[in-house]
């Protein structure tokens, strides 16, 4: 096996490390570092690569679901390494033997002296490195003097919650600490550990969730795609948090241990006649005392468990696997996180296991360095890390949660995997009052020293401190909420770098992030500070003891993080509020698991990157086996259909222009009749369970739905014709009657078309009794015939004399249908409709019917298959009531037909009720809001859509969403440092997060980005990675 270079973090998470890379790689599919590593690997590998490996290679290239036999084997590699070890040993022995045989006495003595000195040195260093831990039993770690019970708190949400709710989170956690203090707990050791975000598990879950389309030879295959996705997601080394609470258990009382010792001594004296009775009594006493002690301890543990499972913390006792992870991670701090680490998770730790813990890493410190050098092996490779532990120093008053993030979470936005170790001592009321009274006395004495003894003006703080002390005393004595219990604690943060300079730079960056309210101190004695992170180790230094109430302690909220999405679906981007983590969206969880609507409004102005985002979502969804229907009148999404991996399964339909099919947008054909064999009309359906006769009930329901479809066709035909009339004609009092009468004469059957309506209007113009009606009908007919003869109207009106029936077969082999409308002339915004040309007036009905057609295509696909529908830039739908009806219909049917409908718009008003009441926002379960251009009305509507309260600062957040950097022609300005990724606010269920859509690391999708041709990614691709 070739040797990979040190500190190659990306290679650490390489799922194919054990097998050599395949030699044929699509060009440009891998980033430069991979290509270089592969080239180095190929030249450095020994010529005799064992052949059994070749078969393993073939099997390992496929994704998990594609491999017929899913047992992953690499036995050849293991035997090779043990063979290598075996080969090493004999030469060494031979060398030693030769030395021993052929040497003189003093060389031998020298060697023994050196060995003895080395052994003594080793014993001395061993003593320094020895851990205080003696063993682990269940969730309790023990040292010789102390036992600690460990509990694990799940991570919680924080962002975009109302301020009152955030305050409630803090207070609930504070109450847990207060209850612990009341239960008699003296010390708490809290740890925040990091685990790598499960990218490999995401890939496996995604592979299972998707039914991928067949691989096209020459294009990106499914396994290469998965590999590229994992690589891109690992680039930022995302982590998850786990918080451990270690409650120190009370030590044994002296009476109890004294009794035990005495009863042990008295054991041989039991046989002696008189003393024996005393001995027996004492032994019985000791035994009952021991049992009583055990019972008390069990009760104490039960109380602690109950308190910790309270609402603020909801912690459970740590399982064996979690204890393992805590100890292994704490002992190997400074090394990279172990993505493939094996957690034995079975059984308790004995003394020898603790000794193994000491050997995991080699720790070194040179006095004056300020950092600890950590050397060790992770995943079979050597790493050297430099760990610096910072201590929390002075804290000013903190405006949490109004204006600040919780203070333990401030540093997370740098993306660093910071770990926290907190040693907290809880003080009882009497202890606090006693210390405060002593403090008051000291203040008064110092005050006297200034004024009485030296006749000087005392510093002003003395008076303030005196008042503060009295206030705290009365606070503690009178407060019944328990939030003023006092604690003193030492709070340490760990920062790791791959070189001393990098570690120091990270330290200064972290100090900057915490300034000016909180100081982070970089102290001496770094080795012992690092060891403090391991459970059971003593406190390294009593400096920087922070004394605060439990409420301030809980305002740290170390366990909160960004929470959005799941770990199975497609990638939207990464979270951007607290810590960057992949934001993954299971597009069909709302339908399959939560039974909610699948309508997702995407509200943003043009140029905010929403078309690009939707294009990426459609691409990922179609790759994962969903059917996609895209209506993109002017945009670049039709190039998606031309990608090589969609060859043969994608189709582009032009709805206008030269290649459009006549009659394809006929309103009568676009609305489908309900199918008789639909599960909704089966008598066995639970809807008809209450009816006396389910069969007739089903039949009447079917007929009612049929009639409703016919009525809908008539009304859509009327509104399409109305959109084609000029405003002067529309205002005429008889126009409405003419159109309605004509449409009702024709009827609502599916086989009709608009030309028949036109003929009916002409008939009205000839035959009706009412003179006004006749005149109106004639002028309406005149205008509509003129419109019907336009080239663009070909799709709405078939040629005179033909029936204009296009084939109606929906090909289920076509997975992606892109509807485009080239050459569509849109009327300019803000102009009076009476000034539009006929071609511009045609745009309205054409876009309206195009949206209906897209909807119909979705309904004709198999009902229980996953489908994605994307409707772009439906400005014209918004301005008419017909658009809102369409949205309502999509929202209602998207759950039944398993459709993820991404509907773009510029104003949130479409999704709210007409008068601003949010009756329809209840139908939207997931929302994406992009840049709104600072429009305050749109921002208010967006807040209603997201269900966020107004006036709490979210308006500023929404106004600031524009990402994508700046583009300038000025040669002297360099705008590359600005963030090129677009930002969106995404709501999924109740989680609302700021998501950064950053595709720079997804190099395997470079051809997709080129097809979608966005300015931002083009600029990002040009800059060297």
């Amino acid at each position, binding site marked *: 096996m070739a040797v990979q270079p040190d500190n190659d973090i990306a290679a650490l998470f390489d799922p194919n490390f054990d097998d050599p890379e395949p030699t044929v790689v699509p060009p440009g599919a891998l980033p430069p570092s991979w290509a270089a590593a592969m080239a180095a690997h190929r030249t450095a590998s020994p010529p005799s690569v064992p052949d059994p490996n070749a078969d393993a290679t073939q099997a390992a290239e496929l994704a998990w679901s594609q491999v017929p036999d899913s047992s992953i084997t690499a036995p050849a590699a293991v035997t090779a390494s043990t063979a290598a070890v075996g080969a090493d040993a004999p030469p060494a022995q031979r060398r030693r033997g030769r030395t021993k045989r052929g040497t003189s006495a003093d060389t031998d003595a020298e060697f023994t002296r050196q060995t003895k000195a080395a052994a003594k040195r080793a014993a001395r*260093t061993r003593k320094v490195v020895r851990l205080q831990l003696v063993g682990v039993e269940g969730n309790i770690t023990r040292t010789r003097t102390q036992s600690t019970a460990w509990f694990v708190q799940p991570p919680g949400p924080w962002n975009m919650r109302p301020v009152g709710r955030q305050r409630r989170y803090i207070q609930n956690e504070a109450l847990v600490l207060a209850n612990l203090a009341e239960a008699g707990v003296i010390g708490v050791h809290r740890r925040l550990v990091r685990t790598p975000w499960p990218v490999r598990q995401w890939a496996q879950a995604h592979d299972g969730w998707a039914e991928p389309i067949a691989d096209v030879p020459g294009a990106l295959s499914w396994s290469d795609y998965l590999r590229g996705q994992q690589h891109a997601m690992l680039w930022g080394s995302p982590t998850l948090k786990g918080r451990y609470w270690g409650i120190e258990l009370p030590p044994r009382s002296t009476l109890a241990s004294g009794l035990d010792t005495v009863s042990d001594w008295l054991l041989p004296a039991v046989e002696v006649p008189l003393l024996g009775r005393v001995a027996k009594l004492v032994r019985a006493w000791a035994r009952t005392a021991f049992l009583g002690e055990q019972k008390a301890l069990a009760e104490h543990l039960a109380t602690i468990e109950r308190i910790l499972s309270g609402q603020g913390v909801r912690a459970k006792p740590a399982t064996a696997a979690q204890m393992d992870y805590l100890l292994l991670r704490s002992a190997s701090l400074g090394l990279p996180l172990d993505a493939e680490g094996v957690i034995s998770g079975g059984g308790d730790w004995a003394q020898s296991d603790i000794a193994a813990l000491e050997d995991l890493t080699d720790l*070194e*410190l040179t006095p004056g360095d300020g950092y600890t050098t950590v050397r060790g092996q992770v995943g079979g490779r050597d790493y050297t890390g430099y760990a610096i532990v910072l201590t929390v120093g002075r*804290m000013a008053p903190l405006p949490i949660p109004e204006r600040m993030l919780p203070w333990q979470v401030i540093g997370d936005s740098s993306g660093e995997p910071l770990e926290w170790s907190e040693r907290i001592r809880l003080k009882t009321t009497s202890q606090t009052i006693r210390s405060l009274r002593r403090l008051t006395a000291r203040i008064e004495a110092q005050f006297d020293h*200034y004024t009485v003894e030296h006749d000087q003006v005392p510093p002003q703080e003395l008076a303030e401190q005196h008042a503060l002390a009295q206030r705290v005393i009365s606070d503690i004595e009178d407060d019944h909420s328990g939030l003023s219990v006092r604690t003193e604690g030492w709070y340490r943060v760990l920062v790791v770098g791959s070189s001393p300079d990098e570690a120091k730079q990270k330290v200064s960056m972290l100090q900057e992030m915490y300034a000016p309210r909180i100081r982070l101190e970089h102290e001496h*004695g770094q080795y012992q500070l690092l060891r403090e992170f391991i459970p059971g180790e003593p406190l390294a230094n009593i400096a920087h003891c922070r*004394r605060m109430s439990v409420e301030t302690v809980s305002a740290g909220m170390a366990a909160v993080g960004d929470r959005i999405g799941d770990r199975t679906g497609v990638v939207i981007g990464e979270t951007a509020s607290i810590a960057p983590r992949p934001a993954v969206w299971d597009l069909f969880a709302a339908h399959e698991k939560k039974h909610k609507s699948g309508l997702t409004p995407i509200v943003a102005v043009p140029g905010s990157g929403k078309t690009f985002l939707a294009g990426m979502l459609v691409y990922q969804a179609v790759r994962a086996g969903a059917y996609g229907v895209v209506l993109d009148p002017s945009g670049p999404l039709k190039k998606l259909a031309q990608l090589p991996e969609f060859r043969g399964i994608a189709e582009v339909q032009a709805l206008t222009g030269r290649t459009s099919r006549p009659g394809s947008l006929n309103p009568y054909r676009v609305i489908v009749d309900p199918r008789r064999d639909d599960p909704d009309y089966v008598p066995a359906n639970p809807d008809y369970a209450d009816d006396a006769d389910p069969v007739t009930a089903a039949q009447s329901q079917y007929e009612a739905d049929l009639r409703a479809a016919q009525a809908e066709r008539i009304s859509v035909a009327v509104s399409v014709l109305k959109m084609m009339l000029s405003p002067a004609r529309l205002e005429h009092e008889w126009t409405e009657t003419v159109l309605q009468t004509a449409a009702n004469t024709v009827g609502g059957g599916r086989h009709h078309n608009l030309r028949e309506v036109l003929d009916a209007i002409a008939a009205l113009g000839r035959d009706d009794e009412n003179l006004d009606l006749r005149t109106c009908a004639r002028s309406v007919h005149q205008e509509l015939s003129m419109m019907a003869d336009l080239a663009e109207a070909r799709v709405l009106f078939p040629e005179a004399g033909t029936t204009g029936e296009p084939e109606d077969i929906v090909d289920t082999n076509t997975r992606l249908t892109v509807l485009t409308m080239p050459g569509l002339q849109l009327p300019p915004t803000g102009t009076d409709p009476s000034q539009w040309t006929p071609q511009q007036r045609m745009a309205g009905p054409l876009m309206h019917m195009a949206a209906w057609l897209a909807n119909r295509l979705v309904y004709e696909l198999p009902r229980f298959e996953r489908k994605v529908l994307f409707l772009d830039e439906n400005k014209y739908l918004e301005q008419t009531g017909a658009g809102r009806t369409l949205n309502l219909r999509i929202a209602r049917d998207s759950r039944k037909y398993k459709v993820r409908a991404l509907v773009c718009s510029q104003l949130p008003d479409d999704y709210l009720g007409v008068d601003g009441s949010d009756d329809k926002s209840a139908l939207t379960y997931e929302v994406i809001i992009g840049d709104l251009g600072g429009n305050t009305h749109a921002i208010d509507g967006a807040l209603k859509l997201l269900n966020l309260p107004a006036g709490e600062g979210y308006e500023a957040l929404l106004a600031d969403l524009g990402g994508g950097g700046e583009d300038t022609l000025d040669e002297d300005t360099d705008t590359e440092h600005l963030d090129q990724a677009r930002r969106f606010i995404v709501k999924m269920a109740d989680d609302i997060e700021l998501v950064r859509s950053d595709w720079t690391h997804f190099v395997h999708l470079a051809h997709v980005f080129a097809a979608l041709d966005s300015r931002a990614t083009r600029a990002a691709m040009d800059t060297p990675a």
Partner: protein
Amino acid sequence: MIDNDDMLHRVDRHYLGPTGFTLPFRLRYAAVGLGALVTVTVFVIARAVVQVPLGFQSLVVIVGIGVVITARVTKYVNADRSVRSVIRAAWNDLTAPRPPKAGQTVVLAIPAAMRASRGTHAAASSEGNC
């Protein structure tokens, strides 16, 4: 506003001098105590080990050395860091494990039980000179 008790524990700890006589400089109580201790130690070392004769000049030098050492140490001492913690930090730094020197023989003993139970962290026996 989330507030803490920091201000309470930063009580002014300066010694202005004996009653009625204000010293021209401000001493901290901690500095006074430590200074006394350091000066006595320096005195003992100077008299017993180095055998300096008792005289005005030598006393001034001893006191001067004591003052200098105390100033160096109390530079790090403030309300957050007590004298004990400063000394403890220095001790921690000095007793931390040092990087191994080149040319040293290193001997590692691996408990037999660990090898059997924890197979993942392969215990590579690295005997020999490094």
